[in-house]
């Protein structure tokens, strides 16, 4: 252990919201020049702690003290913490899509000459910053025209445009594919060598192990422990145990698949891009799903998996070109979402906040939203039936909430996802398409979601799981299709599936021999 004073010390931080104690006596010590990971389940208080640190919750609205660079910090707002060199990069990027990279980097911080923006200086400084973060793009490119991985880099470049001493990244790799994630982690290591301290909040234990010097584990608003990786080594089981407060024997519940006949088949599905009609987003895709089977779709971000799923779900994406859907041997036409639901399809979107839920709704309204006819009698909604149905799902899916009258925004990510699952289970579907069902969900909740998925399959339903996390697909699925640039490039059974084979087929158009 170094004897130099720590860069940051948060002492006994307690933050209460009306009715909830979000943080209770939290301790966090970050040494100068290290990469410090913070992990914990959703709702453990990670984000709240960072908001306290960055002044979103100003001095005086919490108890405890922040010692930063040897003195007590009393930030009144984000501006104040930024001036002190603390920059936070949120999971939801704060970039303006219609502005260029340069404009975004210097937004609110524009270099001025005689009161006018000095674009020449801005551009050359932008290039310098972009080189620093390894972003090779024309600085005049608009943000909306670059991928999410590069946007993240712009966000970091923006942090460097200010004088950053402590960089905080909230789930920086949540939306990135493996390559971009790797690049980002390398970048953080580079920063470390230049003496920049980073705090990283992440759910991805392998990344934390690879990069962190210290790990602080939070649970239920309390600090469980801080692990010094160099001294003690990072033990994944120990982290998980700390986060969830119990051992997870396995990441996946036990499940004996009971697989029946092929009941759902897609043949030669081809879809055009909604705006640029010459682009094919799905090319001649064919696949099958059996009863009781969990089928995975692996692919890089932008491979066209979501587009495939949504176009099947009542043509909710793109322009239909050709292809057929068969269910129980008969061809079916799904021209609208209503058709799709009527034919027993369900689609759980990858973005539950933007398209999965109405955030103004409470739990019970959300649960019944996709099949109001089931609680309608003589044209009138039966509120008691609605309540009973929602209550049944609350119990069976173990949604953590005092009552189903609660608003969905009050729930953690994992519980929101359970509500979305309940919403689609309520439609009693034969085929569920789950798009990134565990994105942004903590370890404990993931385990429960896997259990629900397996349970659905055991009931004889077909389940399609789209995921960017290969271990998840390998652990969960009976069969995995790989998708690359809109085409299905391979089909791998559970016993042959390993990350290497999958990755190979996810990144090449060459169709390998199917097993």
């Amino acid at each position, binding site marked *: 252990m170094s004897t130099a004073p720590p860069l940051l010390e948060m002492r006994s931080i307690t933050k209460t*919201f*009306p009715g909830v104690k979000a943080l209770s006596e939290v301790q966090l010590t970050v040494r100068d020049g290290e990469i410090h990971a913070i992990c914990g389940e959703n709702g453990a208080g990670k984000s709240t702690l960072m908001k306290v640190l960055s002044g*979103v919750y100003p001095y005086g609205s919490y108890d405890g003290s922040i010692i930063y660079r040897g003195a007590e910090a009393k930030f009144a*707002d*984000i*501006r104040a913490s*930024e001036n002190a060199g603390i920059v936070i990069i*949120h999971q939801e990027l*704060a970039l303006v899509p219609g502005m260029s990279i340069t404009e975004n980097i210097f*937004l*609110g*911080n524009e270099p001025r000459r005689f009161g006018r923006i000095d674009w020449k200086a801005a551009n050359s400084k932008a290039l310098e910053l972009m080189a620093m973060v390894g972003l090779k793009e024309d600085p005049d490119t608009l943000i909306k025209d670059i991928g999410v991985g590069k946007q993240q880099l712009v966000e970091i470049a*923006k942090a460097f445009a*200010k004088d950053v001493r402590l960089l905080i990244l909230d789930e920086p790799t949540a939306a990135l594919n493996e390559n971009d994630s790797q690049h980002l982690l390398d970048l953080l290591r580079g920063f470390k060598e230049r003496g920049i301290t980073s705090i990283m909040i992440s759910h991805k234990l392998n990344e934390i192990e690879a990069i962190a010097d210290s790990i602080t584990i939070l649970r239920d608003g309390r600090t469980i422990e801080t692990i010094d990786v160099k001294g003690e080594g990072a033990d994944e089981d120990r982290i998980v145990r700390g986060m969830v407060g119990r051992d997870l024997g396995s990441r996946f519940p036990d499940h004996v698949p009971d697989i029946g006949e092929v009941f759902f088949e897609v043949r030669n599905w081809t879809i055009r891009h909604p705006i640029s009609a010459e682009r094919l987003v799905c090319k001649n895709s064919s696949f099958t799903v059996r009863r009781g089977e969990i089928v995975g779709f692996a692919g890089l971000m932008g491979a066209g998996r979501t587009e495939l799923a949504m176009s099947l*779900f*009542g043509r*909710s994406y793109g322009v239909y070109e050709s292809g057929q859907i068969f269910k129980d041997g008969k061809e079916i036409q799904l021209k*609208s*979402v*209503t058709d*799709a*639901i009527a034919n027993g399809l369900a*689609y759980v*979107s990858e973005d539950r906040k*933007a*398209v*999965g*839920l*109405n*955030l*103004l*709704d*409470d739990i019970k*309204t959300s649960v019944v*939203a*996709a*099949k*109001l*006819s089931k609680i*309608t009698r003589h*044209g*009138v*909604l039966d*509120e*008691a039936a609605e*309540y*009973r149905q929602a*209550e049944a799902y609350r119990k069976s899916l173990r949604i953590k909430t005092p*009552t189903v*009258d*609660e*608003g*969905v*925004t*009050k729930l953690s990510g994992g519980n929101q996802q359970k509500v979305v699952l309940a*919403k689609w289970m309520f439609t009693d579907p034969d085929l569920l398409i789950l798009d990134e069902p565990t994105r942004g969900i903590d370890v404990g909740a993931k385990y429960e979601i896997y259990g629900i998925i397996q349970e659905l399959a055991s009931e004889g339903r077909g389940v399609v799981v789209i995921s960017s996390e290969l271990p998840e697909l390998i652990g969960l699925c009976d069969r995995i299709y790989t998708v690359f640039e809109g085409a299905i490039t391979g089909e791998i059974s559970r016993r042959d599936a390993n990350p290497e084979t999958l990755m190979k087929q996810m990144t090449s158009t060459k169709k390998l021999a199917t097993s």
Partner: protein
Amino acid sequence: MSRMKELQKNLFGGTTSNARQFGMIFTLVAIIVFFQIQTGGLTLQSGNLIALTQQYAYISVLSIGMLMVIVAGHIDLSVGSVAAFVGIVVAKAVTEHDLPWPLGILLGLVVGALIGAWQGFWVAYVGIPAFIVTLAGMLLFRGGNQYIGNADTVPVPEGFRDIGAGYLPEVGPSTGYNNLTLLLGLLACAAVVWRELRARQVRTQMEGAEPAPLWIAVLRMVVMIAVIVFVTLRFAGGRVGTSFPISGIILAVLVLAYSFYTRNTAGGRHIYAVGGNARAAELSGVKLRRVNFFVMMNMSILAALAGMIFVARSAASGPQDGLSWELDAIAAVFIGGAAVSGGLGTIGGSIVGGLVMAVLNNGLQLTGTGSDMVQIIKGLFLLGAVALDVYNKKQGRFSIIGSLTRSNRSRHEAAAGESVEANVVKQPAARS
């Protein structure tokens, strides 16, 4: 929980016991009491109450449709012009072309539906923002009114005037009161009792959900019945020949019907779903276009009705009818707690919002305030009411408007928390 809190939580709650419509109604009561004192008792006199009802019934008819439009995430600026256009068409048809007046009303509704279909088509199927479509409609139908009416005033016949200026007739034995109005009050009391019992019954069917404490249920019923009895006696005991206005009855029927539709049917819930998150609604099988088309069309039909009630009341259709009605209707909806971004709001809230504005207007006139000051005060009141509410939301305190946005406590708190959170995070990020 203290009794006061329990009371606040449950009073005026309607079917779901945890509603908090307390605040807005409290404001309304405060304004009424204030003007009752200021005007030396004029405000709550029979004559004034009857005039008030006739004067604002058509605005409230508009605010019902406007609430649905705003909940779905749109706006309608054309309602005043549509009302004026329909008014002149009907007046011409009845007076100059000798159309029987009941058919005239039917004609007006059909014209309203056609106009609504026209606007709904552009909004729902072409995808032009309702603001633009109805701004165009505002010009279009104002011009249409002047073109058809030659910028003249056209009178309407006796029978037609009843929908705007008529009263319940005098029937039965002489009681010193208008008997039909008394009967209406009795029905309203029975409805209140039935609703309370029904709500308790539904609530007990929900396992784990607590019905409101009995003493609150009883207190609520007593208060509401007392109000109904008071109002009934006032309306029934006015000058002979006057009683509860026909336009008030039309409004009451519409309020009941549309409240039921928005709260208790799938169609109503779809409107909230579209306004709350259109994409999520679409992916849940809601037919987005159909909902948008419906709310726009429905609005124009109600505007047509409002226009006819107004023409009937003023006995003639003129070129200045319906000027700035859209603003009154929109103000009522927002004071009544609807969210600018859609997805939140209730019919009941909008009616209370409209009442607040009406009593304010009426009270100021009774105290002899000039129309210049009336407008200034109304403007400040609108801004103040919404600002206070936004402030309360940010402080995490009880929000008057939030409590009206949906008859459910958790819903508004969730929404408030979300938006404040978003503001806090986004604002500094945008500046930095």
